[in-house]
C-alpha cells in the first residue's frame, strides 16, 4: 500500500563523485513488494522546491526496517537532499510503481542485469533477490568515468560483474553494449535500467529475448493522477500513452516505443 511516511535518515555518504548513498528507516519499508519500485521524496518542508523527487530503491533490509537509496546530486532538489544529516526526518511517499518481476527467472537459470549510471541502483536489490533464489546473475554496469563508478564490490559479491566506462578510465572502454557483444553467455532473462538510448540499444541487441526495462521520465504526482510522465506504447491498436509512475516504471521489453 502507498503511504506517506516520515522516514528517519540513518546514514548518508558520498560514495562516488556526486553520488550519494542514503539510508532511511520507517514503516514504508514493510510495504515494498518488488525491486525496482521507487519512492517520491520531498526535499524540503517548504514549497521552494515543490515537486517531489522520484528515486529508486537500491536495497531493502526488512529486519532493520531500512532501505537504501542511491542518487546523483545534480539539480537543486537533489543537492538539498545531499545536505540532509543523520537523524533528519524526510517526507517520503511510496512505495510507488511496479518493479522488476523476480518470478520471471527460475532457480538455476541465468539473468543478465544491465545498468547505466544512476539506473544501476535498483538492479542491486534485484540481484540480491534473484541470487537468493538460486539465479545466476551477470552484471554489466556502464558509467561515464571511473570517478562515478559505485557499488562495484557489492555487485561482485553477488555474481560476475563487468564495468564499462565511456572514457575508458575503468573496465571496458565504451558502453554496456560493448561488453554485451563480448559475452557469449546463454541466459533466460535480462533486466535493465538506465538512460533511454541505452535501453534502446540493449533491447535491440537482445531482440527476441525475454527482458524487462525500467524507464525514467519527469514526474509530477508519482501516483498516476497528473499524466506528466507518460510514454508511448508500440502496440498499433492501442496508441494510448502509459504512465511511467503507476503503470511502470518497469515494462516488458517491446511495450514502450523507444
Amino acid at each position, binding site marked *: 500500500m502507498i503511504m506517506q511516511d516520515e522516514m528517519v535518515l540513518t546514514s548518508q555518504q558520498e560514495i562516488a563523485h556526486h553520488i550519494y548513498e542514503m539510508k532511511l528507516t520507517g514503516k514504508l519499508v514493510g510495504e515494498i513488494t518488488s525491486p525496482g519500485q521507487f519512492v517520491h521524496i520531498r526535499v524540503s518542508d517548504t*514549497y521552494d522546491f515543490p515537486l*517531489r523527487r522520484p528515486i529508486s530503491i537500491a536495497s531493502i533490509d526488512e529486519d532493520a526496517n531500512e532501505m537504501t537509496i542511491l542518487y546523483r546530486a545534480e539539480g537543486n532538489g537533489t543537492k538539498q537532499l545531499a545536505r540532509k544529516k543523520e537523524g533528519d526526518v524526510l517526507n517520503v511517499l511510496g512505495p510507488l510503481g511496479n518493479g522488476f518481476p523476480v518470478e520471471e527467472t527460475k532457480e538455476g537459470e541465468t539473468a543478465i542485469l544491465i545498468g547505466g549510471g544512476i539506473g544501476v541502483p535498483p538492479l542491486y536489490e534485484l540481484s540480491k533477490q534473484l541470487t537468493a533464489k538460486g539465479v545466476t546473475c551477470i552484471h554489466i554496469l556502464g558509467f561515464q568515468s571511473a570517478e562515478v563508478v559505485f557499488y562495484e564490490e557489492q555487485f561482485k559479491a553477488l555474481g560476475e560483474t563487468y564495468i564499462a566506462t565511456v572514457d575508458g578510465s575503468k573496465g571496458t572502454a565504451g558502453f554496456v553494449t560493448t561488453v554485451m557483444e563480448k559475452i557469449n553467455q546463454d541466459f533466460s532473462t535480462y533486466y535493465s535500467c538506465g538512460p533511454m538510448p541505452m535501453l534502446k540499444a540493449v533491447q535491440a541487441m537482445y531482440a527476441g529475448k525475454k527482458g524487462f526495462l525500467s524507464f525514467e*521520465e519527469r514526474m509530477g504526482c*508519482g*501516483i498516476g493522477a*497528473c*499524466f506528466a*510522465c507518460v510514454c508511448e506504447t508500440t502496440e498499433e491498436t492501442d*496508441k*494510448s500513452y502509459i504512465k511511467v509512475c503507476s503503470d511502470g516504471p518497469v515494462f516488458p521489453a517491446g511495450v514502450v516505443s523507444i
Partner: protein
Amino acid sequence: MNRLSVQLPGLQLKNPIMPASGCFGFGKEYGKLYNLSKLGAIMIKAATLETRLGNPTPRVAETSSGMLNAIGLQNPGLQGVMENELPWLEQFDVPIIANVAGTETADYVEVAKVISTAPNVHALELNISCPNVKEGGITFGTDPEIAKQLTAAVKEVSAVPVYVKLSPNVTDVSAIAKAVEEGGADGITMINTLLGMRLDEKTGKPVIANKTGGLSGPAVKPVAIKMVYEVSQVVDIPIIGMGGVTNVQDVIDFLSAGASAVAVGTANFVDPFVCPTIIDQLPEKLDELGVNHISELVGRSHR
C-alpha cells in the same frame, strides 16, 4: 450546524474544499489513499469529445515555488469518462464538477449535453482557459464576446449549473467575468494557470516539450488573490477560487478575497493528503478567527 457547509448553484458542499481539475485525475489514485467522501466536491480532469493523447514529454518542470505543466488535456474522451470514470466515483458521497473542454463550440456543447446527465455530475466547469492546446481552450477565454457566446451555447444544453473557468492570461479579467455572467454562467472558477517558460541551464532551450506551460503553485497565489478580489466585486455569481493553495491560511485568504469555495491544485502532487488535512484544520481556524460559519469570511477584504 455544519460550520463548513457551502451552498452554490447545483452544489451542496459539506465543506468548501475541492481538488482542482487536472490535479486529481478522475479520483482513482487518491481514492486509494483516503475516503473521497470527505471532500466538498471533486473537479475531475477535463473531458473532450474524443480521446486526447496530450503533448509530448517532458510535460512538467519545477520552478521557484511553482511548476509548469503542459499535459495537453490528455483524457479518455467523453465516452470513456461516462462509462469508466464517473460510475466509479458514484461510490462516494461527493458532488462532481465535470470540466468540459473542446476545440470548437460544437465540441463543448456535445460534451456538456452528455456529461451533465451523469447522476453524480452536479455542475460543469467550462474550460475556456487551458493554455496548453493549440486549438480551442484559451482562445475562448481571452475574448469577452466569444466567451459569452460559448457560455450561452453550453447553458442551453446543460442539465446542471455551469461554472466558467477563467484564464489569468488576459488584460482585463473582469471584462471576461462580466461577459460570461451575461452569457448565463451560474458561477466562475478562477484562476487557471499563467503561461510561462523555463529554459534548460545547459542548452538554453525550453525544458518542456511544448515549450510553454501553465505556471501553478504558490508562485501564482498573489495573482489569483488579486483577480478574485477584483472579479468578486463586479459579478453577482459565486466564485470558486484557486491558485497556489497549499494550507488552511491560503483557503482563508481566497475566501476573504471573495471566493465562496476553494480548489486545491498543485499541492495535491506535493502532499496527496493536503485536501483532507485542510478540511480537518478549518474548524480550528474559524475558532481562531472568531467566526461561526465559514461564509462569514467571504469577501471580507472589500466589505
